[in-house]
């Protein structure tokens, strides 16, 4: 990079431990009751969403779904550090970030229910929708970051991929471009240790996933991905540099996938239950609750009320989702191009008319 050597730090940043105890430097936000409870609420809402989504899928009312159980702190912490005018380019597991950025639970249900209208979310209009081909959103993120740079800077793009995603050429080409073009791009690897059935040890021999930043000459950080305070702080730090100095960064957030890969996966085929059990005490929600309680910011009633509110909000969203009218089949033609090419008019008409025949 023009200005300076990359600033890499491979120590795992932590703020609070599994019991809410302070284990590292506390970011400013940690003393802001409002802010911390907001993070907590966001994680709880995410988990409620996840639970409902799985329930809907099990009863045939949602498609294949990728739960974020145990990883909520990555999604929520990163999104909390973002500004409204930043742009998020998520993988398929960052429901928490999408919700916090302003996509509604109804819209997300709609998408996972197999309706493209769910991606036309009213919230962050510049945010990208869920990306299914692993890491293929990272090149887009580099492009979005370039647009921000050309528009005069002050904003950043945030892309999230998984530990598996860090094996793809796209990942590497995107961060390399960000490095050499000095793009305001923060790439977050949500390292949940598994890519479907492939554990990290069979994914790469790299020292840590953050080391991959060295291939692109960009800043690198590692953070405990179950510690939302630390995630938020690290993301904020990187985002600030990206916005101010067009400095790209790679963040490895180390967490753990407590659930199956998706609703069509059965993790017991390849993963020891004992390993999962071992990771439960690390999970981010109980951890932050312990911190809240230790600060005397959170009483039993608060918890009861929040769980009820979250469940209700999600239940209501689910009802709304289930009551939505279907799109007309012709919608598949109507958003293909800005205006339907005359050559496709006959096909559209055939579909509309339900006449079989050609095409």
């Amino acid at each position, binding site marked *: 990079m023009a200005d300076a050597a990359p600033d890499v730090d491979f120590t795992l940043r932590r703020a609070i431990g599994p019991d809410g105890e302070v284990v590292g430097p506390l970011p400013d936000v940690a003393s802001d009751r409002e802010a911390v409870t907001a993070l907590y609420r966001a994680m709880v809402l995410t988990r409620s969403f996840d639970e409902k989504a799985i329930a809907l899928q099990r009863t045939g009312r949602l498609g294949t779904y990728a739960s974020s159980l145990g990883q909520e702190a990555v999604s929520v912490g990163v999104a909390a550090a973002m500004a409204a005018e930043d742009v998020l380019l998520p993988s398929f597991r960052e429901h928490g970030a999408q919700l916090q950025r302003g996509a509604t639970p109804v819209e997300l249900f709609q998408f996972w229910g197999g309706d493209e209208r769910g991606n036309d979310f009213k919230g962050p209009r510049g945010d990208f929708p869920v990306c299914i081909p692993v890491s293929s959103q990272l090149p887009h993120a580099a492009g979005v970051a370039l647009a921000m740079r050309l528009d005069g800077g002050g904003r950043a793009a945030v892309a999230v991929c998984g530990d598996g995603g860090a094996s793809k050429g796209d990942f590497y080409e995107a961060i390399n471009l960000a490095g050499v073009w000095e793009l305001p791009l923060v790439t977050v690897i949500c390292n949940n240790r598994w890519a479907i*059935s492939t554990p990290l040890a069979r994914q790469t021999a790299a020292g840590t996933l953050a080391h991959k930043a060295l291939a692109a000459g960009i800043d690198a950080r590692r953070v405990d991905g179950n510690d939302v305070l630390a995630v938020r702080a690290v993301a904020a730090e990187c985002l600030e540099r990206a916005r101010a100095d067009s400095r790209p960064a790679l963040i490895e957030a180390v967490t753990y996938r407590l659930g199956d890969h998706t609703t069509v996966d059965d993790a017991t085929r390849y993963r020891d239950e004992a390993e999962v059990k071992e990771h439960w005490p690390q999970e981010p929600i109980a951890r932050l609750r312990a911190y809240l309680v230790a600060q005397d910011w959170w009483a039993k009633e608060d918890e009861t009320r929040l769980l009820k509110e979250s469940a209700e909000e999600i239940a209501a969203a689910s009802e709304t989702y289930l009551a939505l009218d279907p799109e007309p089949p012709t919608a598949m033609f109507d958003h293909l191009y800005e205006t339907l090419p005359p050559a496709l008019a006959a096909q559209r008409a055939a579909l509309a008319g339900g006449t079989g025949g050609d095409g």
Partner: protein
Amino acid sequence: MAELTLVEAVQCALARAMAEDERVVLLGEDVADDGGVFRATDGLLARFGRERVRDAPLSEVVIAGASVGLAAAGFRPVAEIQFMGFMLSTLDQMVNHASRLRNRTRGRLTCPMVLRAPYGGGVHAPEHHSESMEALFAHTPGLRVAIPSSPSKAYGLLLAAIRDPDPVVFLEPKRLYRAYREPVEDDGAALPLDRCFVLREGGDVTLVSWGAMLKETLAAAEALAADGIEAAVIDVATLKPLDMTEIARSVAQTGRCVIVQEAPLTAGFGAEIAARLADENLFDLLAPIKRVAGWDTVMPLPRLEAHYMPDPARIVAAAREAMRHR
């Protein structure tokens, strides 16, 4: 004789090929402990060990590319790509290398590899999981492209693909993976990789299809038969190289052809069959050649998927349309 589903037939053929030739090596994402996301490789890790059943990092380019190297160096890699949408990344390796290595070196290095992937819709899968892009491979000289339409075809064609001395793209209709069982003899008998199969004879109209669409096409033929229209049904099976013999023979008899493909209409593989008929069999034709295909749209998410997929009703309508001409 065991009754197998299509995906079990795939697994059975893989096991057989690995047992009879130790140079057969499997690689792909989640093919080992998980047995593949569709269980096509289930049990093979236990039987053949981790050196021969290899979980790859999440990188389709290197899965295809390493297979090229492995094949050139004397092995018989069978690589799995999880869904067809992720095969696009492999095109560089398949088109620029796998298909060309023999030709480029005038036979010194060869590429006996198989690239397997499930393809097609109808199972309410997420985006990129339901595509039918066989035409991209079928346009590529030096490749073979095979698509089974039933458990026994899957068994026989896959064995043929693995034993073939050249690269084969093997596309499995995931909609049929568990749709039904049929008796499949694990006798190691391969099917020919350069022939269409006549599934049903009929003198009125020739229905041509491949893969999952054969099920719809056979259903359409039944419906037509109920109305006294005798439809021949031809399973293309090997799209590349395309052998027109059976199709031409049937069309010479019927004078009518309906081609059924799940892929979007324009520039799909059905166009090639129609073009061949319009050249070589023009004067046999009594009726316009109809194609029943996916629309020229992006494969929709599950909610609209059923409106995208060609179905027996559309095939019947096209056949009836053809029957109007005598």
